[in-house]
């Protein structure tokens, strides 16, 4: 019995280690290549580690602030993602409270109608959405990426579900004591739903940081675009692999912010994904 478990244990380890190697090698390759000179990349062929570590590529990347201002792009992305995330948390908490705690006629019908409409494939609304954003004067501004995503229903659904688990006795006794909805919301409910707000916030941050199709459509100004759209331009700017190190260095710089977020908030990510899929972790 034990022996059988041991064989399968080693098989599982072998498999997992192989998969993990395949998974990390591209990242390491991108990272180390960003420290190699073009001459070395061309002449030495594939090496996981550089012969000579150089930082020239990064110096060149940072100096190019006109056609590929990578720091500016990352700054744009940070502003967009942080602002979007904060607004998402505000919107989903007050709206979630409204749909789970306020009593008014047709509340659940309204909620599920909106939820149903939101399942409509978003490929259909993307062209008119561009027109609306254009009318609002938001093309080539951060608001094009910050505001439209606030209309989504997914996170509000999560908050509503989560609030159902918060005992109603708490707010009812406060209500008896004469507390208004605003007091109940800020003093009682908000502190209790913090976990689900962190989940909604994390997903919103990663989602807007990594969004690709929409920024490619709404940003044409090189100085205003977020980093995902900027990187699309790089293959041309750094001359179709004439400047491999700079290409890799830019990709690595773009990866760092979300990677740091993951390292600090790892446990929230796992519970976030499972909460989204309706699984108790």
């Amino acid at each position, binding site marked *: 019995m034990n022996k059988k478990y041991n064989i399968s244990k080693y098989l599982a380890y072998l498999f997992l280690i192989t*998969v993990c190697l395949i998974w990390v090698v591209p990242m390491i390759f991108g990272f180390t290549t960003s420290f190699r000179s073009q001459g070395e990349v061309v002449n030495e062929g594939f090496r996981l580690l550089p012969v000579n570590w150089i930082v020239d590529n990064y110096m060149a990347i940072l100096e190019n602030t006109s056609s590929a201002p990578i720091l500016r792009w990352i700054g744009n992305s940070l502003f967009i993602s942080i602002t979007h995330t904060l607004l998402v948390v505000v919107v989903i908490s007050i709206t979630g409270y409204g749909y789970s705690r306020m009593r008014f006629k047709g509340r659940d019908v309204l909620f599920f109608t909106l939820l149903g409409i939101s399942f409509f494939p978003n490929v259909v609304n993307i062209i008119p959405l561009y027109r609306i954003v254009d009318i609002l004067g938001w093309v080539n501004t951060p608001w094009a990426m910050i505001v439209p995503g606030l209309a989504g229903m997914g996170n509000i659904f999560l908050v509503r579900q989560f609030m159902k688990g918060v005992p109603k006795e708490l707010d009812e006794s406060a209500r008896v004591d004469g507390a208004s909805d605003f007091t109940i919301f800020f003093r009682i409910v908000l502190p209790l739903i913090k976990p689900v707000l962190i989940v909604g916030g994390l997903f919103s941050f990663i989602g807007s940081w990594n969004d*690709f199709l929409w920024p490619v459509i709404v940003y044409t100004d090189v100085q205003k675009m977020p980093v995902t759209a900027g990187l699309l331009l790089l293959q041309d700017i750094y001359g179709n692999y004439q400047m491999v190190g700079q290409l890799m260095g830019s990709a690595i710089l773009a990866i760092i912010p979300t990677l740091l977020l993951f390292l600090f908030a790892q446990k929230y990510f796992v519970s976030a994904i499972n909460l989204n899929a309706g699984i108790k972790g």
Partner: protein
Amino acid sequence: MDKSKFSHWFFIGPHIILFVVFILIPSIYGVYASFTNWNLMTSPTWVGLDNYRTILTNQDSSFHHEFFNGMKNTLIFVGVSVPLMVAIPLVIASAIEHKKVKFKNFFQSIIYIPGLISISAAALIWSLIFNSQLGMMNNFFGADTVWTATQPYAWMTIFIMTVWGGIGGNMIIYRASISNVSQDLYESAEIDGAGPIRKFISVTLPSIRFPLIYTVVMTTAGSFNVFGQPLMMTNGGPRESTTVLMMYIRDLAFGSGQSIAGMASAMAVLLGMVILIISAAQYYVMNRNSA
């Protein structure tokens, strides 16, 4: 009591405005625009079913060719990537959840991290890996394949990158579901003489059917919107064999030259209908078979 009669609008009102402006109106307008001639800027002119007729039946039209080629390539992507994006994380999750395996969270993190990398950053790295002269693949295997410009290699680069960056979420869901399966079920299966594969098929899979249905439906719906990987890895080539429908829709509506947003909207509506029908069919079939 009177005061609270209207205060619910304070809580749900702002979001309703956002919803109407950024979801409801654009969705309705997207369907409306598909029946019009529209250049995105001036007001659209009604043309009835003309766009649909051109796309679906006019064999001389480039729109007809683009739609069917784009739909075919999108379906190839969905048909190959969805099974991979379900099966591979399922096997990895099972291995991680093996009773005696340690460092579970470490393995999970490594697999999950590429999902945090944006498509454009990942594509830059993968393009270099598959670059025919400088790339790791050809150097490593001593080959001289021009990966992104010959089939089936062009598709392979897209699938490899997609699986690498896209299975983390599903894997975490499967892991949590598998660890929630009652040990009693496995023990009684063992008493009946079931081996590991038998146990996986008759105990694990039925026990996690709801997360399975959820991930299959969500992964499929997401895969239909594929855009970034072919755009950056192959630019739709060779000879438009990896140009997916989203790429044509974007070019028609937002490409250089006159915008053909009405035609693009008709293609978008057709794609949307395919997504809805397939999602509904999947949900129906899987739910019925597992009940």
